[in-house]
């Protein structure tokens, strides 16, 4: 059972426990469990303890820190610089930022991502970096140079992805809080597969500065936590306008963490017709119906809505995301940083690029770079990229229309529970369909949360299944209230 971040922060603040003893226990638990799970790709033992010590001193000095002593794990596509561990201490984590890619295998970022710095400033203790699909491209955390992350509920199964390491770390009780990133469902799908809460904020809510870009117009950092209130607390810390990110919102953020004590039940919950389609696993379908039932029980009206472009959304997503990725990943050329291939006598600059990239990227990344390069090419742009942008606009409009009928939308997070390791690696299209219920949210820039909603028996294992709640842009308050309502109703 994962401990609550709020309980830890309260204990450290009241000095019932020290940040150091919590950090030490966390590191010990990671040492024990990680060899099986492979959730962490790096931990920062001494430096983590040193940072925890500083938190204890700051608490002793009377400082008030919302995440005092809370151990946090970071998806390894978030930059963590050498000397920014805690304000004023000069200590550095100096970890690698690999994106689980050969090409950044030894890359150390000289600076820290804004979102990470905000957690550190709030008293969080960074314990390590977590596994992911290379550059966030995948739905299973199998496509990593570090090997696959295993699902804590059944080690023969995937944790989901691409933030699988973060989801598994929270699900296994190793950390109460982890950061992930979500481009097409990469926080929500693993949260569902691992049985934790995953929150993808509205696009622009959390600064992307220091998140290694996969698809810039879709990427968003968010928390994975053991419960809705912890996710809300993390969101409070993460959200602020960042002058270093031109897409960062200037809207003032409410204090979500303190508004959840008695959440208002949503009045109207929308259920997309497409969520009850034939492709949905019966266990997932039953979980969804049970969640609807609980909403009805607390007084919400259930309305059926139509998201007609659900299938087209996934095609549009794979055009837009790969187009942006082909451009974002072009910088990894072996010239200035990252892995540079050794050249044979007489080989040229072009050979250097080709070899460095050929050796540095995995197959899925190469596939997406090729796809993205193709859809932007002269003569194909209008047919693919421009058309995908039109679909994106219409997806956005479909959601806007749906929200005239309901306050929040409920849907599956993934079509089925966690699948077995290796089950879909040979079939990229099957893997892409894992995202069918999540990509629309990214295309429309909406906030969405996954809440654990049941357990499904599959292949002799008991597997968690989450449901997804979606709210209009910048309506995290409504989203979190609905999520907390469901969480309470399911626990009752």
């Amino acid at each position, binding site marked *: 059972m994962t401990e609550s971040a709020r309980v830890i922060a309260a204990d450290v603040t009241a000095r019932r426990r020290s940040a150091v003893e919590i950090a030490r226990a966390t590191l010990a638990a990671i040492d024990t469990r990680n060899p099986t799970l492979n959730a962490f790709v790096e931990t920062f033992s001494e430096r983590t303890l040193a940072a925890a010590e500083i938190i204890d001193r700051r608490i002793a000095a009377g400082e008030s820190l919302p995440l005092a002593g809370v151990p946090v794990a970071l998806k390894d596509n978030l930059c963590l610089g050498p000397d920014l561990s805690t304000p004023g201490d000069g200590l550095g984590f100096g970890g690698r930022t690999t*994106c689980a890619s050969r090409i950044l295998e030894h890359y150390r970022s*000289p600076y820290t991502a804004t979102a990470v710095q905000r957690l550190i400033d709030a008293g969080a203790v960074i314990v390590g970096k977590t596994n992911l699909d290379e550059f966030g491209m995948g739905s299973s955390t199998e496509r990593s140079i570090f090997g696959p992350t295993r699902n804590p509920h059944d080690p023969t199964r995937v944790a989901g992805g691409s933030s699988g390491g973060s989801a598994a770390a929270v699900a296994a009780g190793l950390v109460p809080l982890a950061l992930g990133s979500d481009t097409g469902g990469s926080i929500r799908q693993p949260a569902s597969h691992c049985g934790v809460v995953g929150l993808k904020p509205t696009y622009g809510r959390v600064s992307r500065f*220091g998140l290694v*870009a996969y*698809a810039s117009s879709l990427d968003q950092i968010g928390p994975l936590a053991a419960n809705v209130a912890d996710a809300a607390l993390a969101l409070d810390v993460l959200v602020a306008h960042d002058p270093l990110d031109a*897409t960062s919102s200037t809207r003032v953020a409410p204090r979500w963490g303190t508004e959840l004590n008695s959440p208002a039940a949503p009045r109207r919950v929308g259920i997309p017709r497409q969520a009850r389609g034939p492709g949905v696993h019966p266990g997932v379908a039953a979980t969804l119906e049970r969640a609807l039932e609980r909403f009805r029980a607390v007084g919400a009206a259930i309305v059926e809505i139509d998201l007609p472009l659900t299938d087209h959304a996934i095609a549009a997503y794979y055009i837009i995301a790969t187009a942006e990725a082909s*451009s974002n990943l072009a*910088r990894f050329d072996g*010239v200035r*940083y990252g892995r540079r291939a050794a050249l044979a006598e007489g080989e040229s600059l072009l050979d250097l690029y080709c070899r460095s990239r050929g050796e540095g990227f995995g197959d899925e990344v190469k596939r997406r770079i090729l796809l993205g390069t193709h859809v932007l090419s002269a003569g194909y742009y209008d047919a693919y990229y421009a058309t995908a942008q039109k679909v994106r606009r219409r997806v956005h409009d479909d959601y806007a229309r749906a929200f005239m009928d309901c306050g929040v939308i409920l849907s599956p997070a993934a079509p089925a529970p966690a699948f077995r390791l290796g089950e879909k690696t040979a079939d990229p299209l099957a893997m892409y369909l894992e995202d069918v219920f999540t990509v629309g949210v990214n295309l429309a820039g909406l906030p969405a949360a996954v809440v654990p909603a049941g357990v499904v028996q599959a292949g002799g294992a008991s597997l968690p299944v989450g449901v997804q709640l979606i709210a209009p842009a910048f309506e995290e308050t409504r989203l979190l209230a609905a999520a907390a309502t469901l969480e309470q109703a399911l626990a009752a």
Partner: protein
Amino acid sequence: MPTVVSSTTIIGLEVHVELATRRKMFSAAPSPAHREFAEAPPNTLLDPVVLGLPGALPVMNRAAVEMAMLVGLALGGKVAPVTRWDRKNYFYPDMPKAYQISQYDQPLCVGGLVEVPAADAKGFPDLDAPATRVRIVRAHLEEDAGKLLHEAPGGGVMEGSILDLNRAGAALLEIVTEPDFRSAEQVVLFAKLLRATCRFLGVTEGVMQQGHVRFEPNINCELTLDDGRTVRTPIVEVKNLNSFKAVRGAIEHEAREQPRRWMDDGRVMGPGTKTTRGWDDARAVTFIQRGKEDAHDYRYFPDPDLPPLTIDDAWREKVAARLGELPLDRLRRYVTRSGLPTKEAFALIEERDTCLFYEAVAAGLIALGMEEGRAGKVAANWVLGACAARANERGAQPHEVGIKPTTLAALGKLREDGRLNNQGTETLFARLCDAPTQAAPATDALAAVEHLAGELGVLVVRDDAAMAAWVREVLDANPKVVEDVRGGKAAAVGRLVGEVMKRAGGKADAKAVREALLAAIGIREPS
């Protein structure tokens, strides 16, 4: 095979202006195009954004946008209400992100028209000859690349190449004209005026040697053949010319070579025939860089890291208010109203602060009662004469020599009225530069300069009786010289002037003395 009877050169121009913003186009790193950082050692003007480090994001520099708006408006263009940033994708070691942020189909400034005066034999504007109407297609912002060096600094062989990323990400304004030029002279004068305008507007340091202004002419020829047909040769784009001499050379070279090339290969303009050439300054020839088969597919698409930019009326009007009277209009005014030679008028508009100083001197002279045309002329003589000479000795600009414009006007007025002679004027000018007075209205400045001249004893003594006596004395004492003058050696009068000045203790006005002497001798000089 038909032969070429005549050839008309057709030229369009792309100009890159490095904007003198403090910070780069999309990052907080200092820009080498700003005076303060021009001397920065290699690879010191960097940050994660410039280096294209993983996770770094671009943020637009509003100052660069305003500078680009100023230039666009000065060229008669429109500022787009909504403009967008696009990625231009290509691999090059001096471009860390492997894409350049530029503007593709929604540029910041659209359209425009410049009336480029004809050039005289020396390349200065000839306002009497018909002007060329040059249409501007667009002006857009982008980021510059770094510098790749394949030779060791200072020359010499080096293993590998070295990279200086100081310039990477600096704000760059690209201006594109229609192919409205027909000669190298027209292009060069336009280029000079554009550089002067940009410098006047304060948007670039405009140092040619540092590549602050770079030109890329697109050149082809319309050939008239002896069978009456006309054909157009394929367009050649000459890249990266950073001197006016190179612009002229490249165009003249292509104008000569293209008819010859056509006779060799018969190739004419059409899709996919454009080639890119470089300029060899030493040999004064262009050379092939890139043929049509190497054409890039830049895969432009909107940069998802940068929201489209909306420019409302209030912002645009605020920027437009900073335009003032444009340098070319000022030049025309100086030439037509004050009769300045275009060379002088051109010199005055090259530096905004010098130009404004000049205008303040002229205004001071007008306030002291001088006629406008004359005031402009007198002020120009001062600014381009004494001020420029003194500035030159001190490595400064003419407006930076210390003297205040109204004080200079007062000095000019006293001299013009014959109240000071040359020597006294020089003394006073040096004194007023070394120990500047407070800025004051022209009439107060006049009183102050008069007072100081009195104190220094340099005011011309106007004692007509004494003058008449000295003249008589000198004429009587130098009968031989008087004979010479009468005999037509007018220059000999200078000796007599010197004698009178000696008697006057240097306090007479040489011009007045000369006139008095000639009158007494009985010669009337044509005035």
